[in-house]
């Protein structure tokens, strides 16, 4: 499909046009219950098991607003430097599409709870780009559609669709930027950095899982081109549900090249929704965008207005966490890391894990070493993110403590970690169950050393003759005999002692 699309060389696009971006990010809140009913919001449940008359839109059911979701919305707004509405309403967005069984989505229209903010985004080279925020409003998520009969599981060509409404009604915050102009060649990078910064911020606020792979953070990228130096925006397209940071960057770049080719060929851009294809990195046409008035928004009669008192807003402002990028700067100083070292930790997704491990009592050096070497290897082997490993920072801190106190050697500690990863329980349980304690019984070690020396008289002779490095073979034999449960350094000392005696 993508082979048929004409693309313009990226540099040529930039020579002729200025890109304008608009990013809409949908965040699923991690509240226990849905926006307007008490159904649970857990991901991955059996289809249609987290539903009730309200979120199924059954006659007579009435919505009630989840107070925690409003609180999260206000905190998000404050963290994005927004004004918080003194009074706002919900509105019905009417459309025929089976992802909402009500035939409308309860959203906010011209009275968003938060508006006029900004997010300062730090780019790769350390430069800051300010992205202005138009609004953040409250709404509800839609159900999940499974399209049957189409070649690719997509809606096009599908014979029919199957709906699971577990997700319908999950609290959603839509965050909309003002048009992002002036990013030029860095537009794709700015788009990615914005979503990345937003994700970090939402995580720090602890309001959402922000899992792009599970859809709890989704980005729609609006892209248009205008003639270089112009001030009239071109027609935009909206690429939907771009579900990784890398895809955000690729989707923007692809649309710039595609639109550049269309425009320079004398064509015009159709305002439409486009679908991003992960595998090819291209976008393809979806449904034509319905214009705003086609949704026939009107104030939701079943919900009373939300009027957050200024006292409440200020109280929530007091709960805002340290900003992620400021925290990173502080941590880098405290752990005494170079920019490159810090970037490696960030790329590995290790900073929070290390910080939590340090908080649990470990030294930053030990914590760092565990997470970025052995644990990162294990994560890579499993093809998982570091954070997805089934071991907690507290457990890692305990393993480190066991090494520090001499209960475990590093080698045994790795086996203890393996046990935790394998679901065998807490580190202490694994140590007990696997019998991992260091053999600290000196007489047993001496016996093992003597036996090894007796079995290798030639090696013993070499050591006696001054070739101390030959001791390694004896140490190895002792470690083997003790199933690795001896402290190699101590064994070495004992070997030297034994031959010199």
């Amino acid at each position, binding site marked *: 499909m993508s082979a048929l699309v004409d693309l313009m060389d990226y540099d040529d696009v930039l020579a002729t046009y200025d890109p304008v971006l608009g990013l809409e990010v949908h965040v699923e809140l991690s509240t226990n*219950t849905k926006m307007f*009913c008490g*159904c649970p919001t857990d991901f991955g449940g059996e289809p249609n098991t987290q539903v009730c008359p309200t979120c*199924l839109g059954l006659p007579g059911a009435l919505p009630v607003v989840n107070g925690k979701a409003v609180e999260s919305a206000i905190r998000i707004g404050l963290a994005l430097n927004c004004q918080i509405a003194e009074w706002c309403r919900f509105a019905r967005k009417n459309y025929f*599409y089976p992802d909402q069984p009500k035939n409308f989505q309860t959203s906010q229209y011209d009275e968003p709870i938060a508006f006029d903010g900004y997010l300062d985004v730090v780019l790769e080279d350390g430069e800051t780009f300010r992205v202005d925020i138009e609004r953040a409003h409250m709404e509800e998520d839609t159900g999940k559609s499974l399209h049957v009969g189409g070649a690719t599981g997509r809606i096009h060509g599908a014979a029919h669709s199957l709906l699971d409404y577990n997700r319908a009604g999950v609290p959603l915050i839509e965050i909309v930027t003002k048009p992002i102009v002036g990013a030029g060649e860095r537009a794709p990078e700015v788009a990615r950095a914005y979503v990345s910064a937003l994700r970090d911020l939402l995580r720090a606020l602890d309001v959402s899982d922000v899992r792009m792979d599970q859809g709890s953070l989704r980005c729609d990228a609006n892209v248009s081109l205008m003639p270089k130096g112009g001030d009239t925006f071109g027609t935009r397209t909206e690429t939907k549900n771009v579900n990784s940071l890398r895809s955000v960057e690729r989707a923007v770049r692809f649309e710039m090249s595609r639109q550049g080719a269309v425009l320079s060929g004398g064509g015009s851009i159709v305002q439409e929704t486009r679908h991003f294809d992960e595998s090819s990195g291209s976008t393809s046409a979806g449904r034509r965008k319905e214009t705003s008035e086609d949704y026939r928004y*009107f104030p939701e009669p079943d919900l009373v*207005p939300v009027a957050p008192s200024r006292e409440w807003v200020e109280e929530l402002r007091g709960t805002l966490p340290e900003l992620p990028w400021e925290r990173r700067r502080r941590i880098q100083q405290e752990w005494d890391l170079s920019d490159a070292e810090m970037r490696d930790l960030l790329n590995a997704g290790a900073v929070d894990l290390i910080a939590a491990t340090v908080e649990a009592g470990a030294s930053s050096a030990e914590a760092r070493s565990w997470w970025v070497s052995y644990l990162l290897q294990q994560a890579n082997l499993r093809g998982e993110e570091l954070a997805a490993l089934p071991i907690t920072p507290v457990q890692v801190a305990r393993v480190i403590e066991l090494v520090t106190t001499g209960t475990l050697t590093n080698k045994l500690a790795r086996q203890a970690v393996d046990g935790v990863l394998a679901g065998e329980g807490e580190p202490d349980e694994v140590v007990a169950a696997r019998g991992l304690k260091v053999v600290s019984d000196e007489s047993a070690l001496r016996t093992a050393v003597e036996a090894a020396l007796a079995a290798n008289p030639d090696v013993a002779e070499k050591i006696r003759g001054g070739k101390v490095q030959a001791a390694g073979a004896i140490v190895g034999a002792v470690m083997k005999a003790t199933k690795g449960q001896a402290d190699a350094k101590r064994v070495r000392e004992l070997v030297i002692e034994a031959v010199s005696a």
Partner: protein
Amino acid sequence: MPAISRDEVAHLARLARLAVTEEELDTFASQLGVILESVAKVGEVAAGDIPPTSHAVPLTNVFRADEVRPGLTQREALAAAPAVEENRFRVPRILGEEQ
């Protein structure tokens, strides 16, 4: 000059997925026109300092605690569905009429 044109009625009918005949377009346009004119009379008595009213009760901030409440079982949820497949609501193809 009617308050609502025939074309506007046709547009609304399409948005509401209602099949309306040519004759009905005229009928509804004039009927809806009467309704709109009647409602517009409210504007004559509402002074400029009265904001548009969407809610008759002076209530705000009615919130629910974020606590799970039992909902429907899967069987109950799907009981009234016209068609069910794989424990999901089966619906006719979604795209097609316009594209």
